[in-house]
């Protein structure tokens, strides 16, 4: 469905996106674009949605270059970042116009409007001017315009910004439903927890480069190359510390009141031995808490390596 071959993007003298290559298969699924501000997420989205042509390399979406290509654009939807909206419009009229621009008309347009307003929860509230809507309502309408023509590829740039917790959960559910129905969804975010909850595949971007690509478990595998911090609360922290220094995976150790923090390489090998020591009564452990065994840790490690 999507194939980038050394695609890059320049803004004048500034390199927005270094040459990067990856492929995404067709069919449903959710892919996360992850990275801090300035990582190149929006640049990549602009290439994928045909807003900008690549400065080098090639971008193929549905087998063709998307830039100013109606045949490709008819099959994708974009929810851009930011609270952008046409100030003078009423929501429902704007949506109708967007549907017409997507080639819908007559009964098909009416049905598409009713369907998308229903799934975005705006059926009763769309007949208001944009200016009188809340940020969350405007975000829902932007999502609705991208769904009107039932795109096969849906790209959302930081879609959770401005949504309340309930709205976020609803949007996540909706995206999961779309993905289950065969839509390929690409979501960018700089909030790792959002992406980890939602996606089955991650592209990790940093300073215009693709740092890593893979599923959430695959990204977690990268942890094994780096020390992971575990806080062990114990009756006798010194005993735990003495046991730990004999383990080959230990990288560092820090004593705290009532416990010890272990920095461990390859936790997959270390944790079963710790478990065995606890079961044998060798160690009196009250609690074991991973301090950074999550996606944030992967991101921090990888970006640290690349700075």
């Amino acid at each position, binding site marked *: 469905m999507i194939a980038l071959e050394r695609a890059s993007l320049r803004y004048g003298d500034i390199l927005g996106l270094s040459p990067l290559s990856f492929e995404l298969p067709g069919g449903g699924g959710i892919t996360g674009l992850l990275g801090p501000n300035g990582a190149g997420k*929006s640049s990549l989205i602009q290439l994928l949605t045909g807003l900008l042509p690549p400065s080098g390399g090639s971008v193929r979406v549905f087998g063709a270059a998307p830039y100013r290509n109606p045949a490709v654009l*008819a099959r994708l939807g974009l929810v851009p970042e930011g609270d952008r909206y046409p100030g003078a419009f009423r929501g429902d009229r704007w949506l109708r116009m967007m549907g017409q621009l997507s080639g819908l008309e007559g009964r098909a347009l009416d049905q598409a409007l009713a369907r998308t307003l229903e799934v975005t929860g705006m059926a009763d509230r769309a007949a208001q001017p944009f200016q009188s809507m809340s940020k969350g309502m405007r975000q829902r309408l932007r999502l609705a315009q991208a769904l009107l023509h039932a795109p096969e590829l849906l790209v959302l740039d930081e879609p959770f910004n401005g949504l309340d917790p309930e709205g976020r959960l609803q949007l996540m559910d909706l995206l999961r439903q779309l993905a289950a129905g065969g839509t390929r969804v690409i979501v960018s975010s700089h909030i790792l927890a959002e992406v980890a909850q939602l996606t089955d595949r991650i592209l990790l971007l940093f300073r215009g480069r693709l740092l890593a690509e893979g599923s959430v478990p695959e990204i977690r595998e990268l942890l094994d190359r780096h020390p992971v911090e575990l806080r062990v609360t114990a009756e006798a922290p010194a005993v735990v510390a003495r046991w730990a220094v004999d383990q080959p995976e230990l990288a560092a150790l820090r004593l705290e009141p009532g416990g010890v923090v272990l920095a461990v390489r390859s936790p997959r090998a270390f944790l079963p031995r710790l478990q065995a020591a606890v079961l044998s009564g060798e160690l009196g452990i009250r609690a074991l808490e991973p301090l950074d065994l999550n996606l944030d840790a992967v991101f921090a490690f990888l970006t640290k390596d690349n700075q």
Partner: protein
Amino acid sequence: MTTRPLETLRALAFGHAPQVLQGRGWALVALAVVPAALGCLGQSLARQVDPRLALHLFHQALAPMILPIMALAAAPGGIREDLEQRTLPLVLVRPVPVWILPLAKGLVWFAWGAVWLAVGALGLLAVGDAPGAAALQALALVLAFWAELAFMNLLGLLFQRGTLWGAVTLFGWESLLRVLPANLQRFTFLHQIESIAGSRGGTVSGYEVLAQAQVSSPAWMAAMALVLFGALCWALCGWKLQATPAGLAGREAEG
């Protein structure tokens, strides 16, 4: 499923039509009808009809002042508005012919402004204008509005400060009409307007410094010049938008 040019034109024009009923649209209405309204008021206060008043209002107010201000005010409501509100990407990711977008958005403002300019010109009948002259004046204003609006849209796409360059052109260059050499006079909107309307806004005498003999063009030729110039400007707007990659603007493009 791709959207054809005429469908795009229709969707955008009808979609944006209600916008003319907001502030900018009513400002255009006010501008267009104010000269005739003031003329009526002045005549009713003076209790006499001055046969020259209609010509004065047309040549001193409507053509050189009101019309350019209306073009300058209406143009930012066109495609420039989408650029500034950063909503253009929402349209560009749709399967539409990009080159038609400036005309589609400008057409609404042209239609609204043209109707009220015609009303304003025909309103001069109330201050003593001849019916035949008022009709030609209305035609001249409408055609000039078509050309000036297209020109302003083009400047808005070509330059960051398009409105400023537009103002310089419409108030600076145009004001030189009486002193421009004969062939250069034909490169002013006022020359075309006066040629269509069949009357002049001023006279020059040989003893005036820099004064030039005024030239005339056939009315049909002046009308064609305005229509074709407007069409050329809209075409160039379309070409410019088609040829210019327009992505997400500002900070968002960096993320």
